[in-house]
């Protein structure tokens, strides 16, 4: 017994099976986590190797090159880049998307084991860090306070950081901009030398005086007591009265030679929120954890945490990545709902009956919910890709159901009982709906097999749509016949209103039918004219509109977030940096009413703040995090705001370089940029090329940000000790430099403990005694016999320039010039300009260049998609050839595909939207969608011919009879795409391109298909008849 027969015979079972699918689907919908994109496996691993005391070029030669050569053979490697700075080598291995992180890590470990022996003896073991796009902090909180600042670090650690770190999935919580408490012992060098004391001796006395030592136990009487010395400081002021030396019967107290300050560490990264000093708390998630659920948990915990804080401490949110994700997904859900309503309306208008409409519309939620079960079962998320696949599918899932329902209606109208009609009518069309579903699968299943970044994007799309198609096929073959047998009536009553409204609609469709029949009648008798004009349209749009089309990788997403990095000349003092940052903040807040929160941090990061210390930091570097209001509430989009900020930043003379980044960072959804990699060994040559490209690019008025990756030479003071003089004084370099370090940087004498927390006690020169070069020269170094010698007697202080970080890519020195794509250009325009500029430069020998970054990703992804399209075309051809058992029919039908391309080009050019990966996805889907119309037409023409009609007559009859279903399926898909194409919600720029390309491509190709496919059929059929006659004549 066939599926539909069983379904009609056992309505309860059938209904309940679909109810079960729906229930599981709703369950999945509630359980499915939300994310912006499908999960992309980690693609970068960093190998960090410390080699203390080595200069950048030593590091490059002895560590980086060795590592690069060894790691180069790790499989799936895309690029190997490195940075060699003073003391440290950072080698970054970039993998192809979809590489298994565990395998890659193990591979690297194995290679490192081999390499280790070739590294310099003093180099530390290389350390691996796994990084992926996940490592961008998901939440940045601001902390502001008036009075509690000195103890703030501890308060926050206890009350906020630790509870938050316990949340499942949180990777790290770090505090930045809030200095730690330190006990400073500021020594006066003159007094020290007067008493013949040194910083080291003071430190050791403090250390020895701050002790708790258990001394064993004693038995007294019948009891055992433990004995201990409990002499740790209980108050920092106790330090003052420590005796550090006794000369001539007189005690010298610490307070005599030094001042003790219970204060904060001297050099820290400072953070300001809306120009108020405060701190920021950075929350990172573990790799693979879901940002939305984590930030939801964090946000729900915040109010209760805030209650525990002193009343003047306020927590705020600077950046919450999940806001944007949730809003984007919400607006996509809304789009799906609108699509659903539109499709419902179209079906109702065409069918004119509520019951029939209901039966057909029911397949939509059922197939969509079924795909959600798949998403949950396979551990995927609700993201832009999976949800837009749902939105795309809505218009297509009804097609099969419509075909079945129409045939059942025909049978019923002929006089069959609904129950029988349902079975036999479904039987008649089963083969053809299976074939049309197979065509769709031929398009979508190959998507699931793609590798790399394209694969990450397409796998979900492929599976989701394939599953939706399969479920809609099953529902069309089981649920629809069952419902028809129960719900459709032999004769349905029509109300007067119904007759009036649908009378008009039916008359409209009828006159359309007549017009189309006339057009077809004309076309089949003017074949060459029709075909050649079609060719002209195709070529014209390809060669006239084609060059006008721009390309980009991903549309830049407006997530209301701006990041600015500003570099002042190296060595700028922190107070100057701070003053400038404040000025910029004031100016920005005044000039950009869109700004909601403006946070900046400057200064050297503390090494225990992993996130901050991995980023560029220093007293001359400012980083801004700005949140602007939602897109709906402002007139300018994010790119315009960024562009205007860049223009404003050019006005500050103190700024050496800056970069303003809007939106998401990294490959997908970020503002496009063009990276020119200039390879060459010689610093001077590559620097010159980079500088001249930069100036050429900047000479174009609209380009407003070009950044050269290589930093400038850094000025430094080098203390050059004379080894002979040191030796004569009984000293060596190590001793001398330790003395220097202890006085300037300080020595940690001991820990002061209070309520379970430890604070460093630091002994060093008071700030006023280390402010000039003379102060440094006057530092006294003591030898073993206690004789002091001043630095100026054994060393010279010289100013020196340190070479910048040496960057390498694929084992060659590189300097990259990165230009942001301005608002009025697309990626392809900037690539063109950059290529021209590079070609106009006379490159010195040995220097090569190449594009990297977004463009490289775009090129490889586009190449993948084009290969995929060819594969899909072949598969679609095979499926159709098998269905028609003919090689000519599929060819005729596939003629509609070029016009889909025409439609896409027209749509994108008219709407001034660049071709992005998302519109390519649309184009890919079109391959399957547009041939469907052709199949319907050709199938019916063939049927008419088999029923004995002549070629031209068959074509016109078939056209007349199939116009309605073709229009109906096309309208459901095209109108279903409109909400995507016209979306104005948050994040809609991501899928607008896709909606546009499907809507335009399908409309244009349908219009052309309706004329060109029947005409082309006539040509082939006519030739076939001629050939047959010739054979007969022979």
């Amino acid at each position, binding site marked *: 017994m066939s599926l539909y027969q069983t379904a009609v015979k056992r309505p309860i079972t059938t209904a309940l099976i679909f109810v079960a699918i729906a229930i599981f689907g709703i369950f999945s919908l509630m359980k499915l986590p939300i994310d912006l994109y499908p999960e992309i496996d980690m693609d970068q691993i960093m190998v960090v190797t410390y080699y203390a005391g080595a200069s950048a070029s030593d590091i490059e030669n002895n560590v980086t090159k060795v590592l690069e050569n060894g790691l180069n053979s790790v499989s799936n490697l895309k690029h190997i880049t490195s940075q060699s700075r003073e003391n440290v080598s950072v080698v970054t291995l970039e993998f192809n998307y979809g590489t298994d992180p565990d395998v890659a890590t193990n591979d690297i470990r194995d290679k490192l084991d081999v390499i280790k022996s070739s590294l310099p003896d003093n180099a530390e073991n290389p350390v691996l860090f796994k990084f992926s796009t996940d490592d961008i902090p998901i939440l940045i909180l601001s902390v502001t306070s008036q009075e509690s600042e000195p103890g703030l670090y501890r308060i926050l650690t206890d009350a906020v950081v630790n509870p938050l770190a316990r949340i499942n999935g949180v990777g790290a919580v770090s505090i930045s901009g809030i200095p730690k408490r330190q006990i400073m012992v500021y020594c006066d060098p003159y007094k020290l030398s007067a008493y013949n004391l040194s910083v080291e001796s003071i430190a050791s006395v403090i250390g020895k005086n701050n002790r708790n030592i258990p001394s064993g136990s004693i038995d007294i009487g019948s009891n055992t007591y433990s004995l201990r010395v409990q002499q740790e400081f209980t108050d920092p002021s106790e330090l003052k009265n420590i005796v550090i030396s006794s000369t001539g019967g007189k005690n010298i107290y610490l307070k005599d030679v030094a001042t003790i300050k219970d204060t904060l560490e001297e050099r820290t990264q400072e953070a300001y929120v809306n120009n108020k000093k405060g701190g920021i708390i950075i929350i990172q998630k573990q790799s693979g954890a879901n940002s939305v659920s984590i930030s939801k948990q964090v946000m729900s915990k915040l109010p209760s945490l805030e209650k525990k804080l002193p009343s003047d401490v306020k927590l705020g949110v600077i950046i919450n990545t999940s806001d944007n994700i949730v809003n984007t997904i919400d607006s996509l859900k809304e789009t799906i709902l609108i699509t659903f309503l539109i499709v419902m309306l179209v079906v109702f208008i065409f069918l004119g009956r509520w019951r029939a409409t209901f039966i057909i519309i029911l397949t939509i939620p059922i197939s969509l919910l079924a795909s959600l079960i798949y998403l949950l079962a396979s551990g995927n998320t609700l993201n832009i890709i999976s949800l837009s696949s749902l939105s795309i599918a809505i218009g297509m899932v009804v097609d099969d159901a419509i075909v079945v329902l129409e045939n059942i209606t025909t049978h019923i109208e002929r*006089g069959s009982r609904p129950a029988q009609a349902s079975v036999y009518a479904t039987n008649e*069309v089963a083969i053809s709906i299976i074939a049309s579903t197979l065509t769709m699968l031929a398009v979508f299943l190959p998507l699931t097999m793609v590798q790399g970044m394209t694969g990450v994007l397409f796998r979900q799309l492929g599976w989701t749509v394939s599953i939706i198609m399969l479920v809609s096929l099953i529902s069309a073959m089981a649920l629809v016949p069952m419902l028809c047998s129960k719900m459709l009536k032999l004769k349905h009553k029509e109300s007067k209103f119904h007759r009036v409204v649908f009378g008009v609609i039916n008359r409209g469709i009828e006159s359309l039918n007549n017009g189309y029949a006339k057009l077809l009648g004309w076309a089949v008798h003017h074949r060459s004219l029709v075909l050649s004009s079609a060719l002209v349209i195709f070529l014209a749009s390809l060669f006239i509109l084609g060059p006008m089309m721009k390309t980009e990788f991903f549309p830049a997403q407006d997530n209301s977030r701006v990041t600015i990095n500003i570099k002042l000349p190296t060595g700028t003092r922190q107070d100057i940096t701070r003053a400038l940052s404040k000025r910029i903040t004031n100016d920005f807040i005044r000039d950009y009413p869109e700004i909601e929160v403006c946070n900046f941090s400057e200064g050297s990061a503390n090494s225990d703040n992993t996130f901050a210390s991995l980023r560029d930091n220093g007293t001359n570097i400012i980083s801004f995090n700005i949140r602007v209001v939602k897109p709906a509430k402002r007139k300018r989009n994010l790119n315009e705001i960024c562009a205007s900020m860049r223009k404003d930043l050019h006005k500050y003379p103190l700024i050496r370089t800056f970069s303003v980044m809007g939106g998401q960072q990294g490959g997908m959804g970020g503002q496009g940029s063009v990276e020119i990699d200039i390879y060459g060994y010689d610093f001077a040559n590559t620097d010159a090329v980079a500088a001249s490209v930069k100036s050429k690019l900047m000479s174009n008025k609209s380009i407003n940000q070009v950044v050269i990756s290589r930093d400038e030479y850094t000025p430094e003071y080098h203390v050059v000790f004379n080894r002979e003089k040191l030796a004569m004084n009984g000293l060596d370099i190590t001793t001398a430099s330790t003395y220097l370090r202890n006085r300037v940087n300080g020595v940690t004498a001991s820990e002061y403990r209070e309520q379970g927390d430890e604070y460093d006690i630091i002994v060093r020169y008071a700030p006023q005694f280390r402010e000039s070069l003379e102060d440094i020269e006057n530092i006294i170094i003591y030898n073993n016999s206690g004789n002091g010698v001043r630095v100026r007697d054994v060393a010279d202080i010289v100013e020196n320039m340190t070479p910048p970080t040496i960057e390498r890519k694929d084992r060659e020195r590189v300097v990259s010039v990165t230009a942001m794509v301005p608002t009025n250009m697309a990626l392809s325009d900037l690539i063109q300009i950059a290529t021209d500029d590079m070609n106009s430069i006379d490159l010195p020998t040995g220097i090569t260049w190449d594009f990297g970054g977004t463009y490289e990703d775009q090129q490889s992804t586009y190449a993948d998609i084009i290969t995929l399209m060819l594969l899909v075309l072949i598969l679609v051809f095979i499926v159709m050839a098998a269905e028609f058992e003919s090689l000519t029919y599929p060819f005729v039908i596939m003629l509609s595909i070029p016009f889909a391309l025409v439609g896409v080009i027209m749509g994108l050019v008219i709407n001034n939207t660049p071709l992005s990966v998302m519109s390519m996805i649309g184009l890919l889907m079109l391959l399957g969608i547009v041939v469907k119309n052709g199949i319907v037409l050709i199938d019916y023409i063939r049927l008419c011919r088999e029923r004995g009609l002549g070629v031209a007559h068959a074509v016109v009859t078939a056209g007349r009879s199939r116009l309605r279903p073709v229009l109906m399926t096309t309208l459901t898909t095209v109108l279903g795409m409109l909400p995507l194409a016209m979306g104005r919600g948050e994040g809609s720029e991501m899928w607008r391109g896709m909606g546009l390309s499907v809507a335009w491509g399908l409309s244009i190709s349908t219009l052309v298909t309706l004329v060109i496919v029947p005409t082309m059929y006539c040509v082939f059929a006519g030739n076939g008849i001629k050939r047959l006659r010739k054979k007969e004549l022979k």
Partner: protein
Amino acid sequence: MKAIFISYNQAYHEEIIDIMERSQIRGYTYWETVKGKGSFRGEPHLGDHAWPTLNSALLIFADDSLIPSLKAKLKDLDAKSEAMGLRFFTWTIDS
């Protein structure tokens, strides 16, 4: 004894079995799918791409007295929706 051969659109099957029961005819021979087309009008029932519908056929041997009412009911059924297709033929046989 008379033989009656009924060739009809598959969708009629249950109704015809119903009619037979009401006419007190018990025995029959039934082919679920048969193909064919009428001599004068109506659509062919060939189960192929051009003519996808199929017929079923019944061969009934019954007592002479039962035949007229059966014929009348079948005629009524056919008249209700001619497009479906229903034909029957009777002849006399030796028992």
